[in-house]
């Protein structure tokens, strides 16, 4: 049984064209290679 109100909450406004640039800037582009890089850098610093 679908709860309309609960279901409605899942619908978020779509990004408008004017907000596209802000959306790109707000993106967290960190990936696993970045984490590996940071971890390796930290390890190397600790060892030194």
């Amino acid at each position, binding site marked *: *049984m679908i709860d309309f109100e609960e279901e409605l909450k899942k*619908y978020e*406004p779509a990004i*408008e064209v*004017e907000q*596209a640039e802000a959306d790109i800037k707000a993106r967290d*582009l*960190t*990936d696993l290679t970045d984490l590996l890089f940071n971890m390796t850098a930290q390890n*190397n610093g600790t060892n030194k």
Partner: protein
Amino acid sequence: MQCFMCGADVGNSKVCYNCGADILLYKQIIYTSYVFYNQGLEKAKVKDLSGAIESLKSSLQYYKYNTRARNLLGLCYYQVGEMVRALNEWVLSKNLQPEDNPDADRYLAEIENAPGLLSKTNSTIKKYNQAIDYCKSGSKDLAMIQLKKVITQNPNFVRAHQLLALLYIQEGKYADARKILSQASKIDGNNTTTIRYIHEVKARLKEQNTGRRRHKNDTVSFADGNDTVIMSEKSFRSMLDNSRASFVNILLGLVIGLLICFFLVVPTVRDSVKDGNTNTILSLNESLAEANSEKDSLQSEVDGLKKELSAFDDKQDVATSYDNLFAAQNSYNAGDSAAASEYIQLVTKDVLGEQGQQAYDSLYELISPTILQGYYDDGNNFYAEENYESAIVNYKTVVDSDESYDDGAALFLLGDCYRLTDQTDLALECFNKVVELYPSNKWGRQAKVYIAADDTQLDAKEIGE
């Protein structure tokens, strides 16, 4: 391969000997990213766009520089109607890999080159957002109107389809909801929200069909343009009956129209065609008569021109005849009687003047023996070749000039040619003349034999010369 930390060349080593970085782990991360990319690609190929989007997002979480995954993610967003998200992915792709990124270049160029696409997209998005606001404020009818417009402008916008279906479910319009969800399912075949709604709609429809018995005064609803008409089943049936009667009336009208066409219009058309044909025949006859009269006038003109031309021919013949006469005279003077006879035969005596005719006569008299001799010789040659027709022509020329030529030999041979060509009367005429002129010479005697025997079929050799 180079180390991701220090950039040193590590070859196939698992660890960088320069900085101690875990190269194997780095490679595994890249590999996993491409595994997710392949999954996303497979899902996108079977129109499981939601699944593809999830896989591609995972791929990019492992390795953000996987440009192919990012471009494909943008394409999937574009396909489900999320234009701005698609645009964002392609812009990011271009920023992360500015060089050698033809797919992102192409997608962005296509959007730039489509005039008004972005403004139209923006207007659609605004309407969708407004519809969400209407839903949250309880104005479901307004929200449905806006969502219908959104779907018209952007038929691939899956989220709009889903929201509209949710509203239909909330309103109890399960058939409409199922229709909208079916459209959404064609765009994105494995979207969990869509599937969940479809199950819900199916369950509700099943309940409606099996759980309750329909009452006689059940209401019937149907869409008339943008409006939904609700009426009792009884009035709906009476409306259908009226529609049936209207349909019968229309059919009757069509039949009457066809009959009128067959009995009134077709004969008129036929008559007009017949009249047209008659007119055509009359005009053709007139044309033929005109052409005939024109032909007659042209023929008379041709005859006149021929007469004029013959006059010119005669004039031309005058000069030629004098030339030939002089040539004959000169040849005769030079002692060449044969050439003179040939030339004089080319002269037309009638066109000559009085003096010319006198000169012609005197010259002809002088060379006529030669001419006759020529004809006689030719006749003899033809006779020997059994060409009696040609021989007759030559002998006749000789006989016409001199019946007693060569002591009646020419006349006898002419008669013999007539005999041999079955012209018996002419043959007997010739033989009689020969007997009359030379009764005692050999031609006369032979002629007598023919006449007496009345056997013109005898051969000359049999008679004996």
